[in-house]
């Protein structure tokens, strides 16, 4: 893999080497354009990255690669993304989930990569809702991605088919956790995307986690002649009356380009282009998380825990919002055990990770000592909270780490550490500035596959479409 030469003029500059930026960069480079993907940090991957600490490799964000379909299944987001990026299916070495569940105090639903399991679980636990659920499933199956209504409430949509409040919460809870930028609800368009990717398709994990997948993408970008520049933060997007003219880097130098694809986020991109306003700043999302990661001296399955992911809620109705009065909300969360995917690389240790809701405002206000204490509390609190439905992992923890809204903002630039971005999505990637387009979270596709699809779609639409080439 030859190192690409460095220029100061590009056909397209991509801001952010997350999944969407890498995918967009590959598409643009395939088309023969000179493209640079700029990443502020030393590592690439964005919200789905990796790091080393205490001699171990840790993933950021990855619970699952959603949208799993077996090799050879056509017309699905995963197959389309792989085709467009020219990545062979087997390069991902995907291992399927063993099975997951949603747990509330009075009911639970198991689901897997076979939709029939979810259907039978609903039919068994909510017989009166069986036909309503089937009608809901059929209606979502018949709604193509991109045709959902981004003004309509998912909760109201489900309620038109299913009138049991607990079942509505059970069905919605994992989807909120997997991608809603909106408290307690999500829009119908996002719901359709997530229902398909989580329930109809399902979860898998690349053997070895994010790193091998990111290596594949980086190699594809280099093979096509695209350039990945790490430690290369963008200070400003420069534009004039005819649109974008370049980007100014944090080191003071400038790259000339007439086209920028930005994965920085809507609010963040407007700030970089000097066109933000109080109204735009108000659009920033507020849902953020603390993620508590543990290495264990045993495998979770040896403790009797075979679930891949548990989406839990310890109160009778869904909690999904930044806590108003404290820094943490421990009564709602996600427990993920990556060892409970098939085909994982041999590793004597086990891993468990718990994600809980956090208030960015509180976390940003802590001094160093309070911050360290709060991380500790979050970790202990989260691992205690899951004990009503999972083993006590705490005696088995050998190494621990936690990341917070502050960490997320530091490494991704996302305002408020809002992993799922701003509630209002921009599916066409448009901005008021000619030549500046959004990709990634705020364009509206979610998850690892969705993010790659986002970069591909915007690159294709604005850059590769035959009428503009």
């Amino acid at each position, binding site marked *: 893999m030859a190192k690409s030469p460095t220029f100061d003029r590009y056909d397209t500059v991509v801001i952010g080497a997350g999944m969407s930026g890498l995918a967009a960069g590959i598409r643009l480079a*395939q088309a023969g354009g000179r493209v640079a993907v700029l990443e502020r940090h030393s590592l690439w991957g964005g919200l789905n990255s990796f790091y080393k600490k205490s001699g171990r490799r840790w993933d950021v964000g990855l619970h699952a690669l959603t949208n799993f379909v077996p090799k050879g299944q056509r017309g699905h987001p995963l197959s389309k993304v792989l085709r467009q990026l020219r990545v062979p299916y087997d390069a991902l070495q995907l291992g399927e989930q063993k099975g997951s569940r949603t747990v509330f105090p009075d009911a639970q639903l198991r689901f897997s990569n076979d939709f029939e399991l979810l259907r039978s679980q609903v039919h068994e636990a909510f017989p009166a809702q069986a036909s309503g659920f089937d009608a809901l499933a059929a209606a979502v199956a018949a709604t193509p991605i991109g045709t959902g209504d981004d003004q309509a409430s998912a909760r109201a949509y489900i309620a038109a088919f299913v009138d049991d409040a607990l079942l509505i919460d059970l069905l919605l809870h994992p989807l909120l956790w997997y991608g809603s930028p909106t408290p307690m609800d999500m829009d119908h368009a996002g719901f359709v995307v997530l229902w398909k990717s989580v329930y109809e398709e399902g979860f898998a994990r690349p053997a070895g986690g994010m790193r091998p997948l990111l290596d594949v993408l980086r190699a594809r970008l280099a093979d096509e002649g695209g350039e990945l520049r790490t430690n290369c933060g963008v200070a400003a997007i420069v534009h004039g009356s005819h649109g974008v003219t370049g980007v100014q880097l944090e080191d003071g130098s400038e790259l000339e380009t007439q086209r920028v694809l930005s994965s920085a986020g809507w609010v963040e991109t407007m700030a970089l282009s000097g066109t933000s306003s109080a109204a735009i700043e108000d659009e920033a999302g507020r849902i953020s998380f603390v993620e508590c990661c543990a290495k264990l001296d045993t495998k979770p399955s040896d403790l009797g825990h075979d679930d891949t992911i548990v989406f839990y809620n310890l109160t009778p109705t869904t909690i999904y919002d930044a806590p108003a009065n404290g820094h943490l909300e421990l009564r709602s969360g996600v427990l993920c055990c990556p060892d409970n995917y098939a085909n994982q690389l041999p590793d004597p240790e086990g891993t468990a990770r718990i994600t809980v809701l956090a208030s960015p405002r509180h976390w940003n206000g802590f001094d160093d000592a309070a911050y360290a204490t709060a991380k500790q509390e979050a970790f202990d609190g989260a691992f205690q909270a899951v004990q009503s439905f999972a083993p006590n992992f705490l005696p088995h923890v050998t190494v621990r780490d936690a990341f917070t809204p502050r960490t997320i903002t530091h490494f991704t630039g996302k305002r408020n550490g809002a992993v799922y971005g701003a509630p209002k999505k921009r599916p066409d990637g448009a901005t008021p500035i000619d030549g500046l387009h959004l990709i990634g979270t705020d364009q509206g596709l979610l998850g690892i596959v969705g993010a790659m699809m986002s970069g591909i779609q915007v690159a294709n639409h604005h850059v590769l479409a035959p009428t503009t080439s």
Partner: protein
Amino acid sequence: MTHEETVLAVKDIIATIAPDEELDGLNLDDPLRDQIELDSMDFLDIVMELRKRYGVQVPEDDYKELNTLQGCANYLSPLLEGKELKLGV
């Protein structure tokens, strides 16, 4: 490039853009779309590769000519005349 080489050139481009497809059994006369999974975006990629590898521009109105391998050969052979086959680029 001969007629046969033109078919090889197109098949090699398809192998590049669709690494998971089995191409040995492709016949000349049935629409490519019916034999393997190719959507309109994939056709755009074929056109893009023709431009990159051989400098051939296919106008959008002519995409329909690329419907079958035989159609590709008929349409592209004159455009590829005198050019050398590039495989596995």
